[in-house]
């Protein structure tokens, strides 16, 4: 049964009143179940029934568009955004005018003290908020620089820059040593045709222990699956590399993999298939994960002698 988290988030961001959000997911799920049951009655398979139910119900975009076409479903503060500013201004004016006016009329020192305390509180609040914003900005600059230092062999530049091979042995020697215990793939003639240590280590590189901040952080590889050495290339003793470019999705999965450069087309398919299996920790900006297009990786195919 489909969940409508994306729809609910979209409607919530647009200011649709919460009482409708609470109902819509339940009603859509019930409706979907009824459509599936109707499809089953006509002896469709489970997959066909689910597909038909989804088609008839409509996708989240269509439903969201229909919601947004009805402004009466929004909270009043979203229907008339000027009221947010107006309300704040009205409260500010009341405090600014009434407090001294009261003092003048009633000559009460307590009113003056209240007004002064309120002004001091507002000033302190503004200073604190500005300070916090500055801290967040500083943190973003620091974590961004750190992420770049760790993942230097990846580039999001769209210019055709040849990425350099980076040896990771010196960075995490104990990690590389642990991973080298895994068996290497066997070639057609029975010899061990290992992918170079560099690629092998890189394909199982785990950076979760490095502790990058959660609120903002750059994308980082979590798992990189080793590419399978093409049998035909192995039989011919061919070595080479492929540079692939892809997008790191918001979920951390890889999509839209394309080959940018390769020494031989024999390696391309294996490189693309391996790249699709990579898993990343996605880039996070202000607590929201974002897509990162144009990420490049060089996958080497070397036969160890």
């Amino acid at each position, binding site marked *: 049964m489909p969940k409508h988290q994306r729809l609910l988030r979209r409607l919530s961001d647009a200011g649709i009143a919460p009482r409708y959000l609470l109902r*819509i997911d339940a009603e859509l799920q*019930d409706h979907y179940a009824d459509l599936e049951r109707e499809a089953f009655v006509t002896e469709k398979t489970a997959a066909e029934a689910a597909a038909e139910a989804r088609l008839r119900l*409509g996708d989240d975009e269509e439903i969201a568009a229909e*919601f947004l076409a009805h402004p009466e479903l929004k909270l009043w503060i979203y229907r008339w955004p000027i009221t947010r500013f107006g309300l704040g201004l009205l409260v500010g004016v009341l405090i600014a005018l009434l407090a001294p006016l009261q003092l003048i009329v009633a000559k009460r020192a307590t009113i003056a003290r209240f007004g002064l305390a309120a002004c001091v509180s507002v000033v302190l609040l503004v200073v604190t908020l500005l300070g916090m914003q500055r801290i967040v900005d500083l943190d973003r600059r620091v974590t961004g620089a750190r992420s770049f230092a760790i993942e230097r062999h990846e580039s999001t530049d769209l210019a055709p820059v040849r990425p350099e091979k980076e040896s990771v042995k010196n960075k995490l020697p104990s990690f590389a040593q642990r991973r080298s215990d895994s068996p290497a793939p066997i070639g057609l003639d029975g010899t061990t045709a290992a992918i170079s240590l560099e690629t092998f280590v890189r394909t199982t590189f785990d950076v979760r222990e490095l502790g990058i901040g959660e609120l903002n952080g750059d994308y980082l590889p979590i798992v990189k699956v080793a590419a399978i050495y093409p049998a035909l290339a192995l039989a011919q003793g061919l070595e080479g590399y492929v540079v692939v470019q892809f997008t790191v999705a918001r979920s951390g999965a890889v999509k839209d993999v394309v080959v940018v450069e390769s020494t031989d087309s024999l390696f391309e398919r294996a490189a693309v298939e391996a790249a699709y299996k990579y898993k990343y920790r996605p880039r996070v900006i202000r607590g929201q994960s974002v897509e990162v297009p144009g990420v490049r990786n060089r996958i080497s195919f070397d036969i160890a002698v």
Partner: protein
Amino acid sequence: MAQTNPPFMSGVPELLILRLLARERMYGYELVKAIRVSTGEAIGLREGVVYPALYAMEARGSLRTRRITVNGRDRVYYSVTAKGRRRLKSLTEEWQRVTSGISTALEEPGRA
């Protein structure tokens, strides 16, 4: 079946929904099915978009809702209020006026 949600049909779903709910209260899936059957499949809706229309009519006071448990399943049933009946009457009169005018225009010869 005719085109789904053709552009000149805005306002028609509200008229249909009020007309059907004035006869008996229904929940969303039932209502969409009733629209298809009563119009002879002439009007089709992407079924999920009926809910925003229902919520909007409820917000305007034309409909009321009630949660009823049937066969162990909770359903939200929609029914027409007094204000909704007045709205239905006004929409029906408007529709009849428009269709009458169009029919007259189509009957006139030589004016393509």
